[in-house]
């Protein structure tokens, strides 16, 4: 008898839980690690009485695979420029319906950021989220490191005779782009000889660590002297350090010529809830929400109104916070072909051969 009662109770409990859940709509979001404030997410859930199922990946390529696999019906994803174009060309994206984004009318995108996507064929498939560059995060405890970076720029990272401990992003696009930029080539080159030069440069550099989000932590911990990172990685850590009142022993170097990237919300064809996906995007076009989110994430927002508040009121007045200052040269990654992507991936694997 006791067992029967217990079994019934368990059954009742399960059903009541299931009932709770089924009342709420579910939104599946695919994003990078540490790229959205969970409090802002919770606010969205509360405001719209929905549940957000949130998945994190470490690269654009991993994001692409997740969307192609379609094992989770993602409603919103946040890839970068070239990946948005690739997904669009593979017919994996729904165009964004601007009539479902009322907040769009009350915000302006920063001119320099808008120029990146405005005239692109993928502009109708995305709403920009954050933008930034790649550069070098370095530990400032050793004056020789600062000297080397100020004198050589990207060269400090690639110097084969360097005695500094250096880390490289384990992302074929970004690693090879840094090498190409140092050599003075276009980041989108398909020239075999230029790519071969970049490969040799990466190989001879003999990096101590190939990583992703861990690079910034190891630079700050002093296990690396410098590493290639995204600009936002620096701000993320800078404001975390200021908040904890830790001494800031690291800095970011943005070269005169580097790439500029822009990440945007997209709605993959896997989406089951297109309207809610738009509601989600609209939520992040709200200035207050995006200010709160930007403060946590650390990357540079694309909305002018948000950017102004960050700089004027919240102390984000660091000169490198704006990723595309007047007088600098910035390249944007382009999707060339799947074969080209595989070629880049092969290069970054080959440079690790003994």
């Amino acid at each position, binding site marked *: 008898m006791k067992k029967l009662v217990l079994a019934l109770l368990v059954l009742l409990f399960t059903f009541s839980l299931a009932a709770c859940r089924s009342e709420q709509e579910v939104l599946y979001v695919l994003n990078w690690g540490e790229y959205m404030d969970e409090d802002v997410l919770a606010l969205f859930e509360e405001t719209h009485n929905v549940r957000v199922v949130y998945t994190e990946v470490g690269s654009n390529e*991993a994001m692409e695979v997740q969307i192609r696999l379609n094992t989770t019906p993602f409603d919103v994803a946040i890839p970068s420029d070239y990946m948005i174009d690739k997904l669009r060309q593979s017919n994996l994206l729904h165009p964004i319906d601007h009539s479902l984004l009322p907040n769009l009318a009350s915000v302006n995108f920063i001119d320099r950021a808008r120029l990146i996507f405005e005239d692109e064929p993928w502009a109708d498939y995305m709403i920009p989220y954050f933008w930034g560059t790649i550069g070098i995060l370095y530990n400032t405890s050793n004056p020789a490191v600062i000297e080397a970076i100020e004198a050589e720029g990207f060269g400090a990272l690639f110097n084969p005779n360097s005695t500094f401990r250096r880390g490289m992003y384990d992302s074929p696009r970004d690693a090879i782009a840094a090498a190409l930029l140092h050599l003075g080539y276009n980041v989108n080159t398909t020239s075999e000889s230029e790519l071969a030069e970049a490969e040799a440069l990466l190989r001879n550099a003999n990096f101590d660590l190939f990583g992703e989000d861990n690079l910034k932590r190891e630079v700050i911990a002093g296990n690396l002297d410098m590493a290639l990172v995204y600009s936002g990685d620096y701000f993320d850590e800078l404001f975390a350090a200021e908040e904890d009142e830790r001494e800031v022993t690291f800095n970011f170097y943005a070269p005169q010529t580097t790439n500029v990237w822009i990440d945007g919300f997209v709605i993959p064809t896997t989406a089951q809830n297109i309207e809610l996906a738009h509601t989600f995007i609209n939520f992040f076009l709200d200035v207050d929400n995006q200010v709160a989110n930007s403060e946590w994430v650390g990357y540079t927002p694309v909305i002018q109104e948000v950017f102004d508040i960050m700089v004027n009121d919240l102390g984000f007045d660091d000169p490198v916070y704006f990723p595309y200052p007047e007088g600098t040269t910035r390249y944007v990654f382009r999707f060339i072909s799947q074969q080209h992507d595989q070629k880049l991936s092969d290069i970054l694997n080959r440079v690790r051969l003994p």
Partner: protein
Amino acid sequence: MKKLRALSFPYVMWMSLTIVLPMALILLVAFSDLNIFRLGSFTFTLEGFSVLRSPVITTAIRNSFRFAFIVTALCFLIGYPVAYLLARSTSRHKTLFVTFLILPVWSNMLLRIVAWERLFFPNSILNMFGISLNLIGTDLAIIIGMISMYLPFMIFPIYSVLDKMDQALIEAAIDLGASRVKTFFKVTLPLSFGGVVSGVIMTMLPAMTAFALPARLSGGRTLLIGNIIEDYFMRTANFNAGSIVSLVMMVLMIVLYLWILRFDKEGETLI
């Protein structure tokens, strides 16, 4: 008995669903140009196998075998004496010792990998004791990490065989005039071979396919075949090439497995 056989039906179904079907898919994708994301017509081709000529893949396969052999050998050299002492121990704390050996296996493997990673960096908690290991990126880091992960899997099969071994056989050998050393090599060791074979299989196979461990402990500098397969499936979405490499690894491991089994004449393997 026949009635009981019906009970195995769910298990057989489950097995075919989760093992046989995926294997068939891997075979199909490896030997054809089928696009797994856009199922449609396809042709059988061996073209994809040209990826095996890539130095990245041959090096990764070589690395995987090298680390698996070194780690298995060291696990055996460390594990056998431990298992022997444990089995022969008459201490009333014997169960406690065994528990201590199992304990690490209960914590998440990724957690243990990250713990080693933290210790192997030049700046770590060990600096308090004036030690700075700076092992990240070395082969030694991978070997130490792997041994710590897989050692229990070597010890336990050997321990359980030694523990159950008939003591009368050893007494008989000694009574008949064999020295302790000779008894060990002529009686104990051959009788525990089943356990050794299980231990070798349970250590070598996971060591060969590890990918999170080498990725973290080598600082992303040493590629094992597990990393290549992960790359194909999770980053370049090249399922055909990924399947081919997986298939080759499976065939190599089956060959190795059959070769190891030949040493186990009694067929006493625990698996």
